[in-house]
């Protein structure tokens, strides 16, 4: 059963694509109002787990629970009003404007004969303001930079107005300043009371932004909890096969992983 303190959890999950099993008997609990980051080496199953939590992938065994119900037993649109997902890659429709794309996030709240309520309008302008894309409203999405485009996708997910938002590698393909920009935005959304779950690649960024870190390897959760408590050189070595030193991030006070150096510049 799902723990009462958590709206989103998975129990006894076996996750597989066709015959290729990625994870077996996985239990996971997403703490409410946390910024949970799932991390691990390539092919550890972190994106697969996120996809299962977002009901994109049906587990072979076990179940994902949302608010105490098996997620697949709930009406699909109903789930979409509680839980949003920003997929790793989405296709920008030809010639669509920023405002139109963000407006598509309202789909789960609409019906054939109720296509554009005042609540829809408010949610869209709110989402565009939060992601700082309001000035871009009439621009064509295809013509934006990678960082702007990712903010627009985030705005679409925000317009969905879900209390839980899952993000599959939201910073991939972005340069460092845009990565920080997107993660700062996620942190803000978290501070406003949303439960955020993100798959990230960069361990230092994960430590900096996560309030709850889930560390995976080979389809299993190796460790989870507050990054300042669980991230140790031993853990990094066990999970990533990397020798490192851990210091305090001078900016945020969170753990900062410094990989062992092969050479040293002479002073």
């Amino acid at each position, binding site marked *: 059963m799902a723990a009462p303190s958590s709206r989103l959890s998975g129990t006894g999950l076996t996750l597989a694509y066709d015959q290729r099993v990625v994870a077996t008997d996985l239990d996971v609990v997403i703490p409410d109002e946390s910024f949970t980051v799932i991390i691990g080496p390539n092919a550890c199953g972190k994106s697969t787990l996120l996809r299962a939590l977002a009901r994109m992938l049906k587990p072979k065994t076990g179940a994902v629970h949302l608010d105490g119900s098996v997620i697949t037993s709930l009406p699909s649109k109903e789930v979409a009003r509680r839980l949003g997902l920003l*997929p790793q890659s989405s*296709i920008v429709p030809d010639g669509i404007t920023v405002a139109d794309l963000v407006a*598509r*996030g309202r789909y*789960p709240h609409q019906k*054939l004969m109720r296509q554009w*309520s005042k609540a829809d309008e408010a949610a869209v302008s709110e989402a565009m303001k939060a992601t700082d894309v309001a000035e871009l409203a009439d621009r064509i999405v295809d013509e934006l930079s990678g960082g702007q485009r990712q903010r627009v996708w985030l705005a679409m997910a925000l317009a969905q107005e879900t209390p839980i938002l899952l993000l599959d590698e939201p910073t991939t393909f972005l340069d460092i300043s845009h990565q920080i920009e997107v993660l700062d935005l996620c942190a803000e959304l978290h501070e406003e009371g949303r439960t955020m779950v993100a798959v990230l690649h960069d361990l230092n960024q994960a430590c900096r932004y996560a309030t709850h870190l889930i560390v995976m390897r080979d389809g299993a959760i190796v460790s989870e909890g507050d990054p300042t408590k669980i991230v140790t050189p031993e853990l990094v070595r066990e999970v990533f096969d990397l020798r490192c030193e851990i210091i305090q991030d001078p900016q945020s006070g969170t753990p900062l992983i410094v990989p062992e150096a092969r050479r040293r510049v002479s002073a």
Partner: protein
Amino acid sequence: MNVRVGTWSLRLAPRALLVGLLLLMAGFLVTVAALSTGEFTVPVPDIVGAIFGQGTPVAELIVGKLRAPRVVTGLLVGAAFGVGGAIFQSLTRNPLGSPDFIGFTAGASTGGIVAVVTGGSAMMIAGGALAGCVVTAVLVYVLAYRRGVQGYRLVLVGIGANALLLAVNSYLLTRANINDAATAGAWLTGSLGGRGWEHAQPVALALLVLLPLCVWIARPMRMIEMGDDAAKAMGIRVELVRATAITAGVLLTGVATAAAGPVVFVAMAAPQLARRLTRSPGVALASSALMGAVLLTAADLAAQRLLAPTQLPVGVLTAAIGGTYLVLLLRKDRH
């Protein structure tokens, strides 16, 4: 632009509305021209009378029995091709995903040719075309299926099926006797010549049943264009919508081909032209239907009048008009 009445609200794009109105007007003008002009001119005021049995016997025969069924069949077939094309271009996210490129029209042709060479009646040719289209679509869908159907795989499998079926069609024609081959050849170009109400009725019925279905799936289809995960995250049952769309698209294409033969280019060009005129993101079903109807009837009118008294099959003209217009638009897109 938003329209709100109580808890009802509709979102309308002014440009799409304007384009729709213009297309309706164009369709009306083409219809009037097709009914009025020709070897025997029926003055415009007499057309209404002729249709409702108040005109001269000659006008009644020419307008009511010959021209009206032809132009109505043209409007309906054009609309069906337009929607069928729009559906598959949306599903495959590719203009080349139209039924005339992914083998469905070729499969319909195979069915039609088989009916011709086995000495079938006009009804059996139509049935053969519909059956050929459906069977091809099922095969392409099954062959392309792997954890759901991805657009690019549908296009690739479809292009393969298309090539194969064109070879089969050529082979069937070489084996047929000269009369059958001539009949089949004429049918294969696609023509509205000699179409009566019995040709218009099945297409009208198909549109009546399938268009409401298309209204229901239009919005989820637009979401699926952003990718399966993005659509599922919005609460859309992707495979259900896709299966419904494929069924509707195949039936519309099959019924249209059964009525007029495999008229090329309408299914491919109509949605692309409509999209460019309305500047709507993604494929728009309603404007594609109108555009298909106007395109086909205008082409048929031109085919009858351009080289009169020589009558061209409309398929020749649709290829010329649709192709030329599309090339021009694609050139413009590059700037």
